[in-house]
């Protein structure tokens, strides 16, 4: 999800995910993500992982870097996680299985690794399912459709839109405050403790400034009739169309098929 409200407008026709209603893109993967929380086998997460990645690559408009990160990063991540999770599993339960490697006293069992792998795969699958809406939706579009279809009060929706605009200002203020404290010699020593104490010193001026800013913005919004009526005119409609229903239905269908396949395999 990106902050710039206008990235979605110039999506090339190929990137069909960008032209779907955000809510549809959220609804489609949700049940399977829930299911993935409880399954324990290897195949289900593996299949959904592949499905999600393919879908994002085909239907989303990704920068080369992101695409690469997806294709290369995920397998690496899964492998690392599988080892570390495996490391922490209770050896006594799996010591019947083969020993993969041994460090001094410690022996790493294949069983432990498989358990770690399952966990890692489930995490990866859940994440990449979340990427389907995540990489193809802009924050403002999501907020708009939530206002238009989920009965979220528009005053809250538009506050959220304003919140997105606070972010760059926050960054800038943080830079300034950090510099200011540096030159005023608030350095106060090295090490994690000192740095935590220091950053704690930034928080208050940062927040105070942000709240002051928020107050001014609210005055500007009020003076422009914000909240005058229970509803307001919307120029950017984010409609729920037939294609959204089709997308969700197909997605669920494929999902069920994948579940069956997984059940067959393992």
């Amino acid at each position: 999800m990106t902050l710039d409200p206008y990235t979605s407008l110039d999506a090339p026709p190929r990137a069909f995910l960008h032209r779907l209603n955000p809510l549809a893109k959220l609804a489609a993967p949700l049940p399977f993500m829930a299911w993935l929380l409880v399954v324990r086998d290897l195949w289900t997460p593996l299949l959904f992982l592949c499905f999600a990645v393919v879908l994002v690559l085909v239907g989303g408009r990704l920068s080369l870097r992101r695409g690469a990160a997806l294709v290369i990063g995920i397998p690496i991540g899964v492998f690392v996680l599988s080892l570390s999770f495996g490391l922490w599993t209770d050896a006594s339960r799996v010591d019947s299985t083969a020993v993969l490697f041994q460090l001094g006293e410690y022996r790493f069992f294949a069983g432990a690794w498989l358990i770690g792998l399952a966990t890692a795969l489930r995490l990866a699958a859940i994440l990449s399912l979340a990427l389907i809406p995540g990489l193809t939706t802009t924050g403002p579009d999501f907020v708009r459709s939530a206002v238009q279809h989920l009965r979220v009060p528009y005053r809250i929706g538009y506050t959220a839109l304003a919140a997105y605009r606070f972010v760059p200002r926050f960054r800038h203020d943080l830079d300034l405050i950090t510099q200011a404290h540096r030159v005023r010699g608030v350095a106060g020593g090295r090490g994690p403790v000192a740095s935590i104490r220091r950053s704690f010193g930034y928080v208050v001026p940062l927040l105070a400034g942000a709240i002051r800013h928020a107050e001014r913005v609210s005055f500007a919004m009020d003076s422009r009739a914000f909240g005058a009526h229970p509803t307001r005119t919307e120029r950017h409609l984010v409609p729920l169309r037939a294609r959204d229903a089709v997308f969700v239905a197909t997605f669920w269908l494929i999902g069920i098929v994948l579940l069956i396949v997984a059940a067959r395999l393992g």
Partner: protein
Amino acid sequence: MGEPPSVPLRLADVRIRHHGRSADTPDGASFDIARGEVVLLLGPSGCGKSTLALAVNGLVPHAVPARLTGSVVTGGIETTDATVALLSQEVAMVFQDPDAQIVTGTILDEVCFGPENLGLPVDVILTRAQAALLAVGLWDRRGENPDVLSGGQRQRLSIAAALAMESPLLVLDEPTANLDPAGIDDVYAVLRDLVQHGDHSILLIEHNLDASIDLVDRVVVLDRRGRVAIEGRTREVLVDRAVEVAALGVWLPTSTLAALRLRDAGVELAPLPMTGGELTAALDGIRELPDLPRRPPASHAASTTIEVSHLTVNRGRRDLIRDISLTVQTGDFIAVIGTNGAGKTTLIQAIAGVVAPPRGRVTVGGLDPATGDLPALAAHVGFVFQNPEHQFIAHTVVDELTHGLRMRGSNPHDIDAQVTAMLERFGLAELRDEHPFLLSGGQKRRLSVGTALIAGPPVLVLDEPTFGQDRERADELMSLLSRLNRDGTTIVAATHDLQLVAEYATHVAVLRDGELLDTGPTERILADTDLLESAGLRPPPLARAMRNLTAHPEWRSITRLADLPGAPS
């Protein structure tokens, strides 16, 4: 609207007390604004101008915690009986901070935001938006993100957003504070058009009279307590009663100030001029002018304090400043000028080591900020940030001042003495235990300067010391600086206010797009109109008036009020 057409604004004995305050500001303000009339509201800082502006559309008392007595009737509606939303169709607001008024992601959305809230049909909204954006000359850029606009353009956008409300009354509270000259011209060009079409009434709060005076019909001056002290047609107030106005601590147009000063020297300009043009004409009309006072030659200590050689600073691929070389002598007061984004902040931050410059490019009093020995550098260079709140680190005024001394490990007894002295000097004594954030703008600024000064650094670097200050406070601060400067402190200041530069700086460095166009003594730089124009700047008001003199060539080079003959100040 109400039949018969109601007065756009009628204030009757308005008193407003902010939550937690003991005095009313304003304290009994009464005046009207007629259709198509442009009223300028003047008054010393803190007298309640902004508060009054917020009362006009009901933000006081509906959104700001304050008690309002008396009556504010906007477009025939008693504000206390109506919501801010309803009143927004009678009055539109433009505030000081451009960033704090932008809500949406594109210029077009921004202008449509108000009408959308009114629930108008889309085609109506779009016609309104187009009209408003065409009026401020931003229609062609409607698809862009407001963040890419310059300060002046953003303020124009805010005006467009206000116009799109199509409300008969427009209230602007210091719409051009901290904009560069081009930005200010932008904004007033737009307002001038509006006034010519004459279908808007305008309530203008503005410290920069030189830019705004020619479009004002009527002036209302509040006194320190927030009561209407003087009211009348522009000329009646600013000319006929100029002395009274000045006595209230309110700034007059530079030309009027010049004339008042000349009057002390026995040169009577009647009627007093308000604009540069009038001053020029008036002076040319006089055959004999007294000799100019001889300026004491600026004593030049030969020693160099700051040495910048071929300094380039870049962020990512972009050069913020390019190949800048500059030397500052001990005891100089050098002003760094340039448009928004020219690189002023970047340059002075590199000099003070706020952002470490490349090695070997900068030396300040023998230290290289790049090889950051921060304590040593901090002891040598005091830096004052544009926004004081950024640099406050303590929870009381007194701790704020003590901090610097503790850093240097001076002994507690001296610390107390020094801090008390500093508090006295900056008139903060009775606020010593207040939280820095609770001070007024001017007090915050003085405190931030105090914190930079207290360790007694020989070099003081300030980023837009007059930012967000009204002229009175700005002047007070600048005279404090020049006092320090006379006592030998070297001062580097980035600023937009060329009249202040003219009055106080000994030297000027002119930046454009990160390059140093020229640097030298103030008189020479400010006299060089082509140079300033090419940097996107304008000569200060007085210089503009003087350089057109025909009858008195020897007066043409004058840029400072202090250079005029007058009572020795």
